[in-house]
Every structure is written in C-alpha cells, then in structure tokens.
C-alpha cells in the first residue's frame, strides 16, 4: 500500500505503471480541454511496485473505467459510492472466472489522481493474480495498458499537478525513458528481442514493397511479383505471431523477478553460493574446474522480493565445445542481469593488499560485459563483489584486505564470505537485500506482468492489422497498406518507431526507381 500513497503524492513522481518503449507523442491534449474529454482511451496498469507483496494495486483511468469496474466486480446495477472501499469477487468479464477477492474503489471525475474517472483494484500480490487481472482488464473494450508515466501525464494535463511540479515530471520522464531504453536494450539482446526485431524488419520490407508498388509501379519497373512476395511474408508473419501469442511460457520467462547472476572464474565457488542461498543442493558442486556448464536457475525470495538467481559457467578459455557454449551463455546472462554477483576465490589474490585491489579491478573488467562504459562498470547498484573462501585466508590478511578494498574508490560493494563456514553470509545477505530492494523499490524497473500485458496488447493489434492487409489486398491497396502500417506502428510501440523516410530508404535500396 505504501506504493500507492507514494504514487499519489509527490507530483506522482512514482508512476510505476509501465515500461517497455519510450512514450511517443504522449501529449494527448495540451489546450486545457475539460477532463475526460481529453483522451477517449482508458489506460490501466499495476500501480504498486512489483515484488512479492501482500496487496497489489491495479489502477485504471479514463471513460471506460466504470465499465471495467461494473463487469469485473459484478456491479451490474450501480457503481459503489465514490472513494469507498468495497469487498468484491473480481472476475474475468469474458470467461466469468473468479480471479481474486479484493477491494475495489471508484473515483469519479474530477476527484481522482488523474482527474478522470478512475478505479482501483486492491488484489492479492501474487504474480499470477496480477497477470490475470491485467489480462482481464485488457479484454474490456476501450482499455489498453498505460504507456510509461501516462497516469502522471494525465494528471498533469488535467491540471492536477502544479506547474512547479512539472520540472520534476520532465526529469521523471527522462529517467523513465532512460530506464526503458536500458530495459529495451536488454530485452532486445535476448531471444525475444531478436524475434521482434526480425518481425519489425520484415514488416518494414512488406510496407516498403507495398508503398513502392503504390508510388512507383505505374512509371517504373516494379516487378509484378512484388505483392505476391509481400503476401507470403504477411502470411508467415501472421503464423509466427499467432504461435507466439499462444506461447505464454516464454512471456513468463521474460521478466519474473530481479535477475541476479553469479559470475566469476572457474572454481571460485559460484555453485556453492547458489546452493547456500537456496539452502538446497540445486547445483552440482565439485572441486573440478568447469563443473557448471549450463545456466542453473532458481527462484528465491530475498526479504520478500522475487529473485531469479542464475549460476553460470566459470569464465575461462576452453577447448571444450560444451564449456565454450556455457561461457558464452554466462556472458550473455551477465549482460542482461539486473545485478551481478562477481565471485572471486580469495586464495587467488596476491597477498599484498594493494596488489589485490589492482588484481580485482582487472578481474572485474574481464568478467563484466565488454560494451559497458568503463566509468559505469562498477555502478554500485548493479554489481556486488564477493570474495569467497575466506576460511582459507589468515585472519590478519583478511582484515588488511577488507580495509584496503574499502579505501579504494570506484569499487562495487565488497563482501568477504565463506560458503564453507557461512562466515560473512549474514552481512552479504543484508547487502544483497538492500540491492534487490533498491532494484524492486525503484518504480522504474517495472512489473514483468505488465511488460507482458503491453507486449501482448500491441502484438494482438499488430496481428489484427495484418488481417486488414489480406482483406483489402485485391480491393484497395491503399487500405491494405494501411493495415501493414498499423501493424508496424503497433510493433513499433515495443521496438521503436518507424518513420516514412526509413520506408523510402528501403524502397530506393530494393528497387530501381527512376521514371
């Protein structure tokens, strides 16, 4: 509940609603139209921070809010009294399935955070419930997932925020878009990202070829087969998207908690750390270097926050093909991690404390992603340095090392631990907890379910738009092209926008235009 209060105070600076793509042209109204008339679309989002919590708050704002409340809370006759808690069963309006039992609130315009008709669902905080409620909201006509910071912007546009607070809003949006850019990058480097980029690329080509056929075929040599090619592409894309939309498992995997990755050289004790943290032998541990070859994942609850902990293969040059693949995956995982635990075997440190610091600095560079900027390499909130096997170090040397490392600036937080004796583990857990808390409590890190809901909504629009292409293909090519454009716009909301110039560039690359 804290999160809700937070998002309603302080210039709404914690509109945690959404992540994904940077918002584009979000200023839906600028001329002070009456509230509610400004934007006919109704938006919804998980408004509480993510993480396993007792209660989650899902908020909707816009004209269809009342409809959503009516059909999901079984309030067919009348709306509840304004701003009063009401305990209801929350159902999916289409399947009639009961999703949860929780509190609902009705905030009629203009007495709401956004100044529009708004509703809130206070539901149980499990990811399954949240996902189900968000999906149910998405199926109500006129509803769509909110763009980044959209609740706050609507509040601003409705004059709910003082102009002096806008400076903060601008900075907030900057931070959001920056965070989104990072997240998008991370997602884009993964399997899913490749898929979306591939689709975007194919759609761009489809559109470019249709546009070329429209704008140039009368005068130029545009082969007749161009449209048949587009037909095939569109058909393939539709099949792929349909398959993808059915495959919920992959969506779940996309973001299901804070991604914490254990990385380091072979035999540093990474798997032991994993086993210690999850308190069961999840990973095989042996004194043989290179025991762990694939990623070992386990879900953890660190002080109430969901964490997906991954153990990775030790980083070293290897001739073994399997191990090399393991190392490649380990590096990929580190690049996508929210938090990386770099594990180092104390015994390998030079005995001189100063040299040890230099050694560690070098070591960190070798573990961390190469494309990271040097100055951000040791960003405190994204890396923890764990010196393992302290039980093998004389007490005096250990203290010297500890002191020396604390002196060196530009280092990530350092913990000296022993997975063998559990020494230092409690301190490490405190540090880990606070890091995870920062990551989760950071409203910008977004909710995984929401990211999914947004993706799904855009993908569904994209899929539907392609059907428009097929419907008009032989009747009206302008309307068919409009379908491909819409599809590209929808997909573009996940992967970034596509402008007319870009389409023209493809046209001129693929065709010999010259009348």
């Amino acid at each position: 509940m804290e999160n809700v209060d937070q998002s309603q105070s302080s210039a709404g600076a914690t509109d945690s609603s959404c992540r994904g793509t940077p918002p584009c042209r979000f200023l839906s109204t600028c001329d002070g139209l009456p509230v509610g008339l400004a934007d006919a679309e109704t938006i919804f989002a998980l408004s509480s921070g993510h993480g396993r919590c007792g209660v989650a708050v899902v908020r909707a704002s816009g004209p269809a809010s009342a409809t959503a409340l009516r059909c999901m809370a079984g309030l067919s006759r009348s709306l509840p009294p304004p701003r009063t808690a009401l305990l209801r069963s929350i159902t999916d309006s289409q399947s009639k399935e009961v999703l949860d039992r929780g509190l609902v609130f009705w905030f009629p315009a203009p007495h709401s955070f956004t100044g529009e008709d708004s509703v809130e669902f206070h539901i149980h905080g499990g990811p399954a419930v949240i996902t189900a409620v968000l999906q149910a909201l998405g199926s109500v006509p006129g509803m769509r997932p909110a763009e980044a910071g959209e609740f706050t912007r609507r509040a601003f546009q409705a004059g709910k925020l003082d102009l002096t607070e806008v400076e903060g809003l601008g900075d907030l949006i900057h931070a959001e878009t920056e965070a989104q850019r990072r997240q998008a990058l991370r997602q884009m480097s993964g399997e899913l990202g490749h898929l979306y980029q591939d689709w975007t690329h194919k759609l761009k080509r489809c559109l470019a070829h249709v546009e070329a056929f429209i704008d140039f075929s009368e005068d130029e040599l545009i082969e007749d087969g161009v449209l048949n090619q587009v037909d095939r592409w569109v058909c393939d894309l539709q099949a792929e998207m349909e398959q993808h939309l059915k495959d919920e498992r992959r969506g779940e995997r996309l973001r299901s908690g804070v991604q914490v990755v254990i990385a380091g050289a072979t035999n540093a004790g990474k798997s032991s750390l994993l086993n210690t943290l999850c308190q069961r032998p999840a990973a095989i541990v042996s004194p043989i270097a290179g025991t762990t070859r694939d990623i070992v994942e386990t879900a953890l609850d660190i002080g109430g926050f969901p964490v997906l902990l991954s153990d990775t293969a030790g980083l070293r040059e290897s001739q073994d093909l399997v191990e090399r693949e393991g190392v490649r995956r380990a590096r990929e995982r580190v690049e996508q991690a929210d938090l990386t635990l770099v594990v180092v075997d104390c015994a390998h440190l030079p005995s001189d404390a100063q040299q040890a610091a230099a050694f560690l600095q070098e070591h960190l560079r070798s573990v961390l992603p190469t494309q990271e900027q040097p100055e951000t390499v040791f960003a405190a909130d994204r890396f923890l340095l764990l010196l393992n096997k302290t039980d093998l170090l004389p007490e005096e040397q250990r203290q010297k090392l500890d002191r020396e490392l604390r002196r060196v600036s530009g280092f990530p937080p350092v913990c000296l631990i022993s997975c063998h004796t559990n020494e230092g583990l409690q301190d490490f857990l405190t540090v880990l907890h606070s890091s995870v808390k920062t990551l989760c409590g950071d409203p910008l890190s977004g909710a995984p379910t929401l990211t999914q809901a947004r993706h799904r909504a855009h993908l569904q629009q994209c899929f539907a738009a392609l059907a428009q292409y097929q419907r008009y293909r032989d009747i009206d090519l302008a309307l068919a092209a409009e379908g491909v454009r819409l599809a590209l716009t929808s997909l573009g909301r996940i992967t970034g926008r596509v402008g007319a110039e870009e389409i023209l560039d493809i046209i001129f690359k693929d065709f010999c235009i010259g009348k």
Partner: protein
Amino acid sequence: MLTKKLPPLNSFLSLVSRRASHVTRQQYDVIVVGGGHAGTEAAAAAARVGAKTLLVSQKIQTIGALSCNPSLGGVGKGQLVREVDALDGLCGRAGDWAGIHFSILNRSKGPAVWGPRAQLDRQRYREFIQSELLSTPRLTVLEGSVEELLVSETNPEQPGHHRVTGILLANGSHPVSASSVILTTGTFLSGSLFIGQSTSPGGRIGDAPSSSGLSHTLKERLGLRVGRLRTGTPPRILRDSVDFSLAVVQPPDGHPTPFSFLNTRTHCKPEEQLPCHLTYTTPGVERVVKDSLHLNCHIQEDAKGPRYCPSIESRVLRFPGRRHQVWLEPEGLTSDLLYPQGLSMTMPPDVQLSLIRQIPALHRAKIHTHGYGVQYDFVCPTQLSPALQVKNTQGLFLAGQINGTTGYEEAAAQGLWAGVNAARCALSMPTVSLSRTESYIGVLIDDLVSRGVTEPYRMFTSRAEFRTALRPDNADMRLTLKGFEEVGCVSTLRYQEAVRVRDSLQDAQATLQALSLSSNSWKKQLPDIQISEVKNTVMTGMEVLQYNNVSFEMLASAFPESLSRHMEFSQRLKIEAVYRPHCNLQKKEIERIQKEENLLLPHDMDYLSLPVSMSQEVREILDRVRPSTLGAATRLQGITPAAIVHLLNYVRSAELRERRKHRKQQKEEREEELCAAKASLP
C-alpha cells in the same frame, strides 16, 4: 472555365510593357521574383487574397513554361494539383486546358492513391497561365532582372533580424518597394549548367544567369545556410526520326478526367488525345555511359541528385545489367518534338547521340536540343516558418526549388501557400498554415520546414500518414471551404460550388444512413450481391455501399425516388462509404496532432538559456530548427519526451503569465476609468 477565350499573346505582351514604364515608381504589397510554377501560383494567390502584386520575370515569354517534362500530376503529385486547384490555384485548370493525354495512374489500387496525370501541350499551358495572370486583378507583370534584394538594417533589439523593403532592378534606377517579397528563382540561385566537360553559369539553357547580388544578400547579409543540389533534363528528340514500330503504345484514358473541381471536361476532346510510347534501354546504353564517364563532370560532382528521378548515368551505374524504361512523350499537339522520360543525361553532345541510338525505337533518332545538368544552391528550408517566410527576415518568402524540392506540383503548392501568406503579411493579417493531417501541402511544408532536405524533395503518397483521408476526390471538402472562410484565396464562385457539393454529399449520406433495412430485405433489393450478414441484421445504405461489388448506381436504381437525384456524386459517395470507417479510426490520432499543432512555440524563444533541465544536444536542435509548434517539435529527431514536457510547461506558464498580465491591465484600466469618472463628478 474552359469556355473562356484566351486573349492573343501579343496583346498580353504589349500590356505588360506598357505597365513596365511606370512600375518602378510604385509601391506594392507583394513582389514575386520568378515566373515558374511557384512564382505564377504565388503571384496569383497573393492577388486573390487582395494584395497589390508585382511579378518580375527575366523573360515574359517563359512565364508558365514547362522547363523539363511536358506533364503534370502523377501519384502523390496529382494530389498536390487537386489541392492547389481546391485553393483556387492555376495549375489544375491550366492542365485541363493544355492536357493532350489524360490518365489516372494507380486506377486499380484504391481511390486514396489514384494519381491524376496528363501530358501537356507546352504552348497551351504557357498561354493559359499567361492569360490567367493577365486577367487577375491587382496583378502586374514586369520583364526584368532583379539585381538586389532590399532589406532593412538589423534591429538592434533583435540581432540578425531583418525586414524586406523591396527589390532593385538590374537596369532600373529606382528601387521597387514592397512589404513582402517572394523568391521563386528555381535553379537560378548560383546555378551552373553542365554538358560533358563544359560548364557555364545559368539556371536553364537559353536564359541569362541571375544576378549574383541576390545570392550574396541571402548568404552574406541574411546569413542563410545554403546547400547544393543537382538535376538534369534529357535531350529532346525529333518525332519524325523515331521508329515507333519498335515501341509499345500507351493510350490515354478513354474519358479524360479533369484536374480541376470546376471542370467537367477537358479542353482536348477524348479522341484528339495523343498516345505515349514505351521503350527500353539496352546493354549498349550502359556501355556508352561507362565509356564516357571521364567526359562527364556533372556525374562526378558530389552535389546530391534525386534518387527517384535519376539521370540515365546514375541509373545504369546503380543498377547495372538491367533494362530501364524510357517513355517517349509528346511535347504538344503540333510539336515536332518528343521528350524521352528517363533519359536525363549530361555527357558530351556526340555521346548523347550515340547513347540514344542504342535504344531500339531511337536507332536513327535525331536530337533537337541536348540534355544537360544543372547544379544550384537551395536555402535549407528549416530556416523557414510553416508560412514559408524566412524566420529571421520579416516579409521574405521562398517557394519552389529554392527550398530544395523538385517537381512542378511541389513548386506550385509552395508558391500558392507563400503567395497567400506574403499577401496576408503585407495586409497585416496573421499568417496561416496547413496541417499535415488535412493536406499534402501541409505534409510537404511540414517535412521541409521541420526536417529539411538532403536530396531534392518529391512528394509520394507514402509521406502522408493520413493518406486514406487526404484523397484526390475530397480535396475541395478539405480545402476550398477553409480557403474561402479562413484564408481568403478562393473566389466566391468556387466557394459556392464547394458549398453546393458539400450540401449534396451530406444530404445523400444522410439519406443512405436513413435507408435502414434488414439484410434479408437488402438481399431482395440487390439479388446479385452476396451480403454476408446474418438474416435479421439491420444495415444502412452506407454500410451496404461499403461492399466491394455494390455501386451507388445499383442503390439508386433500387431506390430511385430518394437516391437518383444524387447520381452526380455517385463515385464520391462510394469512395466516402468505403473510406469512412478507416478515417474515423484515424480521427483520434488526427485530433491529437492538431491539438499539438495549435500549441505555438514563440519564435524568439531562447532555447540555449531556457531555465529548465534540458540537454545541450536538445537545446541545440531546438535552437537550430526553431519548430513553430509543439507538434513540429515532437517530430524532430533527437527531441526527447522530457524536452517536450518542458516546452509544454514553458508555453503554458507563458500563457498563464500573459493572462495574469491581461487581467491586471484590465483592472488598472477599470480603476483609471473609475478615477476619471470620480474626477468628472461635480
């Protein structure tokens, strides 16, 4: 419109020269420099708005000349012609008068992308334009060369800001003064001509180069950034020397469709139209190009040429090993010449001849005039406002190729809009702009002023986001009414016609909407149609008309008493029915953009020191481009959402301050009145 008799050309000339003698002693509202497509539309539009206008052209005979291809319209370009006509411009009616081969391109691809196009008789086109200008009240035409653009000294309070005061003619001792000046100098700004290895100054072969004074003023005095572009024209070929048996005949449409909303027929009778011919290049063409590259300095220069209308040299170099289309287009009903579309070239004359003879139908062709290339300066159009006024020079407007565009239609559209605004400016009326949501002209101008150009800019339908709403059939509904009511560039006659059309269309649509039957009854009425809806669904006439194989004629014959009186608009009604659902979907997006367009950003905003947190990069972009609206700002590359919020905030608080100030003033005035009233009491 077509019934009017064209006055003989010589009477036109005599009138012009008579006026020329006293022209220099006068004061004008608007002076237009240049008599091409941009200049003629600009002069006519300025005069229609009510400005006392002077058109200065180097040569009276070349006013309205088609310098390059003898054709008008096409895909995207045809939309511009329709819009210029809807705003009462000249080129649509001139095309109807001079057209000798009409066709609608893209006929099979949907009415939104139909491209009305015509081959023109060069002489007829020129005569029509000249005659129109002659009969335009408030417009004077003068033959002369402009030596210098006159601008005021900079205002110390606004460094770098000037004001246009008039022009200085080459041989005239007196300056001619005006509040607004429109430059439409085409390729003449520091233009050079290229054939083979020789170059000479000029903008068009046969015409004197324009004075360097103009170019100097723009660059040095006003500090405008310029770029360099290139273009070219093909050799003209003697018709008698062409072997048409080796080319494919391309007949015109059987029923020519006029460009203009005012015309129901074209001047040329359907059966009088001339065909075009299509032929192809051969490997021999490629060989000649490659062998003569060292003799061809135009192609070696690095000025940017158009990607979509390239010279034959760039075509075969970029796409070797292919055959390329060559269209043989008539230059007029009585002309002996053909225009080989697609053979623009700049090689030496003897090589030009050997190249064209590699083409089957041209194997014994003779060249009348050689092809040549032109390189010219253009003014980076991001320095203009959406009214096409130079931002730092009050009263100076630019239109046409000088802004980096290519094509008659693009020039005409800009000319018209610059003319409108130059006149409004001179007459102390606020400038007006067209949104990209309502017209191709708006798309064109917005692209130019907010994005600039890197190569000659040509219109394509794919540039218009709202293409399904910006159709050639509805340009009058989009622009004529506004053109009369808000802009003042449309005659009463045309306005009344547009109002009649609007009322009829609305009436017909209301009738169709009210025609509500069950799908079963529709099936009985229209037995040949597959209506897919379930039996008892109620459908309106509008909905039934959306079916692919239902025409308005079919509905009218089923319900003659209510619908037959609307037969005049059968095609428009059909198009409207099909497109309306899609346009409605886009409406929200359009409204949102329009709201952003309505939020004006002050011209004199000091972005570099605006007291908000904005990155230096963003500040520099804003400072360089100076978007005139928030909408334009959002379309700039590199502008972050956060910057937009700051801009919005700034504008809003400025409004607030303004309102407070206003209220305070009012209060003070009231108090003063009160005091005065008290004082006047005995």
